[in-house]
């Protein structure tokens, strides 16, 4: 084949790859635009701040917003210390070639691949039936108190699900803290934990926060794990106890989209709910991606 033909064929195929990339971007834009346009129409202050009424056709979604926020907050409180410290172990404390550290890594990689619905089963089998059941027995509750779906068990289930996200981002953040700073601190007579608390963790803070944001965004959007660990379709009361059930934006979307007698009639509030959910998860993701791209570029230029 002549060089010019080869070049032309190459250019054509290159064009195809570009097409693939831009098609994906186009789909993303289509989703965002569709939700934004249709959702904005029904969005109002009242919608954001009132409980639903009239069989979900009227009123707002405040309990779902509140439930999602409370759930994610509890999840974050649970996952951050464990995730950050695990990453600290892997990057700062584990002896090199440590077999335990290698097992932890294998576990984390596999945890990230477990289907979210299996986390739901786990939450039900472990947290609700096993832990909750034993708690009830120990604390002497006659009727079910802990051994039932609740915001606590749902948030812990999500915490296990988002654990790999936090570990991976934190480790990346720890890697970005220059080794010389650790050496300098140790040479000044600081202990390893002092070095960790005063130099390494502050230096890794932006990356750790990115991990938190990613975990929150992931956790807020997951529905499968909370289907039978605590989410409820309609609950006029806000969850005030750790063992209350709760409304959730994603679950709300699922039920309304699949079980409404008339989806077209419900599409206004439905789109608005999805818009709120997207705004929550997507905006957080955007923030995380921007911070991460920036720190990666900085790290790359530092080397």
């Amino acid at each position, binding site marked *: 084949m002549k060089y010019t033909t080869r070049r032309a064929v190459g250019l054509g195929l290159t064009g195809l790859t570009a097409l693939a990339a831009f098609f994906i971007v186009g789909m993303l834009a289509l989703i965002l635009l569709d939700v934004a346009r249709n959702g904005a129409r029904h969005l109002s202050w009242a919608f954001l701040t009132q409980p639903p009424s009239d069989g979900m056709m009227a009123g707002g979604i405040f309990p779902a917003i509140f439930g999602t926020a409370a759930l994610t907050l509890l999840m974050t409180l649970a996952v951050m210390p464990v995730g950050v410290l695990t990453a600290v172990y892997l990057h700062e404390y584990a*002896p*090199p*070639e440590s077999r335990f550290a290698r097992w932890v890594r294998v576990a984390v990689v596999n945890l990230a691949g477990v289907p979210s619905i299996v986390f739901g089963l786990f939450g039900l089998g472990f947290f609700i039936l096993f832990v909750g059941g034993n708690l009830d027995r120990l604390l002497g509750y006659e009727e079910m108190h802990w051994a039932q779906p609740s915001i606590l068990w749902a948030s812990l289930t999500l915490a296990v699900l988002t654990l790999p996200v936090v570990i991976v981002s934190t480790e990346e953040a720890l890697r970005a803290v*220059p080794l*010389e*700073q650790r*050496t*300098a*601190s*140790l*040479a*000044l*007579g*600081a*202990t390893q934990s*002092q070095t960790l608390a*005063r*130099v390494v963790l502050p*230096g890794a803070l932006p990356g750790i926060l990115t991990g938190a944001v990613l975990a929150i965004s992931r956790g807020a959007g997951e529905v499968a794990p909370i289907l039978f660990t605590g989410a409820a379709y309609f609950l006029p009361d806000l969850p005030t106890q750790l063992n209350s059930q709760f409304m959730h934006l994603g679950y709300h979307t699922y039920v309304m989209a699949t079980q409404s007698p008339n989806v077209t009639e419900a599409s206004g509030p439905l789109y608005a709910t999805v818009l709120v959910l997207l705004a929550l998860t997507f905006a957080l993701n955007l923030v995380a991606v921007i911070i991460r791209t920036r720190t990666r570029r900085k790290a790359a230029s530092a080397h």
Partner: protein
Amino acid sequence: MSLQPQNPRAKMEARELILRYGAKTAIHKVSLAILDRRVTALIGPSGCGKSTFLRSLNRMNDLISGTTHAGTILLDGMDIHDRGVDVVDLRRRVGMVFQKSNPFPKSIFENVAYGLRVGGMKDKAELASRVEKSLRGAALWDEVKDRLDESALGLSGGQQQRLCIARAMAVEPEVLLMDEPASALDPIATAKIEELIHELKATYTIAIVTHNMQQAARVSDRTAFFYMGELVECGPTEQIFTNPREKRTEDYVTGKFG
């Protein structure tokens, strides 16, 4: 090779020190005394083990996995690898300044105060006076006294290195180890560091690794020449540079290799 009995006592002393990274021997049977309140220069071609030797004096090599050692290192007659020696205490007595200045991304004040804070000092006035004293000691006070709260990363390279010296001095160590402290600096900044070393030797015992033989000649009282992990020769600086005993030392200091 022999060490003449000197008037100043040996502050630190290596006896037949052997150091290995895994299977590779980095230092082979080095015996060397670092004399009290003198400047000892460690010279030699790259990879000769001089930096490794320096880092073993405050056990910074502990941080590198796979290092093993044999022989002893003494600080005031006490084995620094003894179970009864806490490495943190050791490093407070034997401070270190690195080749690349490595200030923390904190304020100038917090950089100098770091070692004091991790040592448990909380009193603000005491901290402030110690920071000032160290910065003055490192001849940096006049340049930074009006911006102690600004980030240390805003200082010039030479200032950053003097800040690192001040930071090391703040904990008032007895020995100061310097690993090519001026190799990344321009001639003016280098001159300032050398001047500083001159002043410091009244109070500190200093061991300095350097690539630069003029620098060794200018700042040190004694010079030790390392070659391929062994100590070839050690003696008064003047003698090493003008009348070395060993052929290899002569070749190196006259620039025939290295």
